């Protein structure tokens, strides 16, 4: 009976992830991406990834690196297109780093970030962390 499988998959959790380092000075963003993918493949939910501290550089003004270089941000953009996952870039961290403070509304700041990401506030992180069973933080220096 198919119903039996439900009991075997009891431990399906909700994850919230946070990425706190720039894409090419630490492996944090890439580790978070691979963790998210593996978690979803195992049937868990990864509702939101929050980009904070220098992690906001993962989304800012990005086009794409030369083709022989690795493209961490492209991985996130592709994932967001394939799966239901909310990639949030912290507005105050963006503004502190000097990005477009004149455009105070999130809609116009939205034009600065790469495809698949959205600009919002820290409340989105707290909200995700409260709803999640597990919150993981990635980043640090290498």
């Amino acid at each position, binding site marked *: 009976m198919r119903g039996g499988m439900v009991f075997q998959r009891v431990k399906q959790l909700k994850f919230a992830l946070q990425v706190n380092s720039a894409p090419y000075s630490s492996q944090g963003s890439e580790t978070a991406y691979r963790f998210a993918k593996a978690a979803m493949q195992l049937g868990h939910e990864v509702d939101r990834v929050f980009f904070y*501290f220098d992690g906001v550089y993962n989304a800012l003004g990005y086009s794409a690196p030369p083709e022989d270089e690795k493209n961490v941000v492209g991985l996130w953009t592709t994932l967001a297109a394939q799966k239901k996952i909310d990639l949030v870039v912290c507005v105050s961290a963006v503004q502190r780093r000097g990005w477009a403070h004149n455009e105070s509304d999130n809609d116009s700041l939205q034009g600065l970030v790469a495809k698949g990401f959205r600009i919002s506030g820290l409340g989105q992180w707290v909200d995700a962390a409260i709803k999640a069973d597990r919150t993981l*933080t990635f980043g640090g220096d290498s």
Partner: protein
Amino acid sequence: MTSAFLFVFSRPPHSSLHVLEMLDMTLTAAAFDQNVSLLLIDDGVYSLRVGQKPESRECRDVSAIFDSLEIYDIDSVYVEQESLAGRGLRSGDLGLAVDILPRSDVGALMRRQTVIVNV
């Protein structure tokens, strides 16, 4: 829903936005009525030192934000005893009333949390 959030401050202040942005997270979690604690370890203990003069390098005075934690109903500010003593500091050198915690109790404190943030 209420979760237990622990914010671990382990970096020295003043050279980066780390402490300021950690405090922003802390206050936001508090504004959502969560159970919020802070733990200062390693060079993070320098954040609470009295006599800092951040204006001499034109950066934000984080000690004012630490002072405001009370208003936000932050449960506890823990400082690891060994981190403090190992830097020649005593609780009297800190600009805030804190709970001094031996290193051997840090593990138990962490186990009681739902969310732990370090950077």
